[in-house]
């Protein structure tokens, strides 16, 4: 603690006597750390995608040798045909990598790090060295998680929810080391996340520039701040749960072992007490950044800024009292089920507020369809689908039928891919210039968006129908069941679409790397935005601001009557001083 807290105030000059190592590897610069997280999590995004691809092959063409599957060892896919135990590991690790190593770091690792100091006018994080530690702790966690594939008995195969007793009983799952690696890796990653969130919270509370009042914070910062609180309070619960399960595995404790009086349901309670706040950790920053981008794209202040803020807070709070909706059919006391159903349904309200406020922002705007805007719009369109499908499952009697079917899988991909990932694409396109000093190609960007949007829907929308047909999730070979055989064509269709979906990511990868070197040099403020980050050169210099800026307006003063341009940077003073606009909230 104390060591890390003693941080030198960074100098504003770009070139200071720092070696290459200090500058790019063991750096304390929040921007570089953010970029380090970016590369790491994009890598894991690809990994997760490839695992999904293998899974889909098996589901589309059960028992047929997978192209290139011959390269896999006997223990995974003898002569190219996936084994059931390997399929279980694929499902588990796909979920794990995507949630913990791709989306979460992309949102909380990359953008919280990169945006918070820049947008609140601070030179760096409150604890730069803790920040560095946070990244270099995450790396070994990732390596450990990957290593799990190559140990005796294969990788964890109890699902990303690791339900006990299966996850606690090597004798019943056939997996011992893999599950242990999984638990250790998550415990380590948890430490990294906690260090990160300590930083974010402290920075936002204590290091805002003069005039940056709470209600002048951009919604991206609001949501990242609230998310940091969720991370701070939810992740330690996961660590605790992971440790108990680890001890059940290694020390022979009996937390979740019914034979000795332990309670399998306890695991589910503890896991989901963390798990549901976790899924809001995965959406709130997305919502915040989308709000920024939509406001920018439609050159219009965010509609109902204050209600947006309160909606974020409401969602974050309600997120703590709905975890039981994952356990309706688990044998949990049915009365409890009813309580959790009500609290869950109530969450639709703040989400509704946000959705309609986004629409209100577009209304009477002057909408520019740049790539970030397209992806942000994609987010709104897709998140609504995912959110609405949540209503089916929140309704206990209906959930009896669709629980643990592909309806759930459809839901979670609509909120996580259609929601979080589209928002992440938008954010990458939007802040790339500030990160790397070059623009990404708009043409490639638009191609990427259109193709992804189409094939994403072709992949995941049919899953609703699979779910309605009763198609269980986490099954290796649907054709085992007569009532599922009619769905095989649809399964195959999904699989084929997935290949196109992955192919549709190629323009993005190309665009990303090509623009690093060949992209058009970015001006200070390419999107004509109001945020403080756009007042410094691209890429933002070490130490961010030559001198601490002063803030005069809310973040969304687009098309303000006070100025001729259709935007008004937060740090630009205009006289007459702006009359206190309701949504600028000072």
């Amino acid at each position, binding site marked *: 603690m104390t060591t890390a807290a003693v941080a030198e105030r960074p100098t504003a000059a770009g070139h200071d006597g720092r070696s290459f190592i200090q500058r790019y590897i063991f750096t304390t610069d929040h921007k570089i750390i953010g970029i380090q997280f970016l590369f790491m999590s994009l890598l894991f995004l690809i990994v997760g995608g490839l695992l999904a691809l293998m899974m889909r092959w098996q589901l589309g063409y059960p028992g047929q040798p997978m192209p290139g599957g011959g390269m896999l060892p006997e223990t995974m896919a003898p002569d190219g045909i996936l084994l059931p135990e390997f399929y*279980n590991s694929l499902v588990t690790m796909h979920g794990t990598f995507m949630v913990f190593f791709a989306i979460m770091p992309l949102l909380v690792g990359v953008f919280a790090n990169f945006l918070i100091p820049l947008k609140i006018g601070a030179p760096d994080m409150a604890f730069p060295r803790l920040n560095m530690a946070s990244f270099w702790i995450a790396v070994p966690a990732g390596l450990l998680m990957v290593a799990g594939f190559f140990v005796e008995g294969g990788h964890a195969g109890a699902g990303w929810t690791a339900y006990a007793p299966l996850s606690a009983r090597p004798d019943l799952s056939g997996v011992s080391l893999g599950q242990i690696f999984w638990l250790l890796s998550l415990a380590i990653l948890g430490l990294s996340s906690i260090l990160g969130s300590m930083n974010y919270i402290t920075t936002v509370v204590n290091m805002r520039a003069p005039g940056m009042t709470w209600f002048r914070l951009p919604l991206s910062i609001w949501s990242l701040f609230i998310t940091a609180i969720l991370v701070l309070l939810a992740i330690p619960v996961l660590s605790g749960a992971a440790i108990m399960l680890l001890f059940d595995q290694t020390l022979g404790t009996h937390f979740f072992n019914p034979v000795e009086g332990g309670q399998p349901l306890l695991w589910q309670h503890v896991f989901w007490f963390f798990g549901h706040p976790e899924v809001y950790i995965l959406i709130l920053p997305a919502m915040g950044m989308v709000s920024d981008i939509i406001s920018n794209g439609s050159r219009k202040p965010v509609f109902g800024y204050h209600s947006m803020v309160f909606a974020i807070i409401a969602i974050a709070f309600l997120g703590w009292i709905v975890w039981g909706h994952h356990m309706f059919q688990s044998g949990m006391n049915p009365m409890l089920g009813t309580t959790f*159903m009500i609290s869950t349904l109530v969450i639709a309200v703040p989400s509704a507020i946000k959705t309609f406020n986004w629409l209100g922002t577009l209304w009477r705007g002057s909408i520019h369809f740049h790539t970030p805007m397209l992806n942000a719009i994609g987010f709104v369109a897709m998140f609504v689908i995912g959110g609405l499908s949540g209503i089916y499952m929140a309704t206990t009697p209906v959930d009896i039928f669709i629980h643990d079917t592909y309806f759930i899988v459809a839901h979670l991909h609509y909120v996580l891919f259609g929601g979080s990932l589209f928002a992440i694409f938008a954010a990458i396109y939007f802040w790339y210039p500030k990160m790397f000093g070059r623009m990404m190609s708009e043409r490639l960007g638009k191609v990427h968006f259109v193709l992804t949007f189409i094939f994403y829907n072709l992949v995941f929308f049919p899953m609703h129908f699979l779910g309605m047909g009763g198609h269980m999730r986490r099954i290796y070979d649907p054709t085992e069941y007569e009532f599922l055989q009619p769905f095989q064509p649809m399964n195959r269709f999904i699989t084929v679409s997935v290949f196109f979906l992955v192919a549709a990511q190629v323009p993005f990868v190309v665009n990303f790397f090509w623009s690093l070197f060949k992209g058009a040099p970015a001006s200070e403020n390419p999107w004509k935005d109001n945020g403080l980050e756009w007042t410094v050169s691209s890429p933002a210099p070490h130490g961010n601001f030559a001198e601490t800026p002063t803030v005069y307006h809310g973040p969304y003063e687009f098309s303000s009557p006070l100025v001729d341009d259709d935007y008004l940077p937060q740090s630009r003073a205009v006289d007459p001083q702006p009359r206190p606009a309701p949504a600028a909230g000072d």
Partner: protein
Amino acid sequence: MGWLPESASTYASDIDLGFWVITVIVGIAFVVVEAALVLFLVRYRARPGRRAAYIHGNTTAEVIWTAVPAITVVAIGVWSAGLWSEIKGRDNFPADAVHLAIEAKQFEWNVTYPGPDGQLGTEDDFTRRNALEIPVNRPVVVDLTAEDVLHSFFVPAFRIKQDAVPGMTIPVWFEATKTGEFELACAELCGNSHYSMKGRVRVHTAEDYEEWVRSQSSPEAGQ
């Protein structure tokens, strides 16, 4: 293929009704949102010389689109609370039901029948693997347990799903409305062969069922 599997239990139709009612409600919400989205994108696309309106919000509008969803979801909640307790509520299980016990274990369903005396736990009980034989139009109560790990008792045609938890005995009830054969699936990941942990549900007429029970409990029977 039909959207939902054929429904063959008393409350299947209620659940399906709920499903479709919600589909209508969220369908409306969906159409409203997406239509407005597309409309605005077209109507308010950037045009030279038009400046966006400088608006920060509108309280009336916000109140409306807070209140409407709120009322809707509460309505949904109230409706489903009733059906939920009817199906899973511990205190309203149907009387004069056929009483069975099912123990799930990797990777099979062991169904224990009360035998001719209709009493579980007596010596004329008998157990059948992956075969659930029940009478039509008569409630069946199953005491669900698991030996090793979590499993989930899932009969799509009956719209019933309930996890089987080692160390707990969870009662489940359903009443078949059609004779015939249905599939019993395991819906909770329970290990390598989870995908093939399936059973058969055979729904007999009352007479056939009596007949079957007698044939099974006669000494020479049993597999």
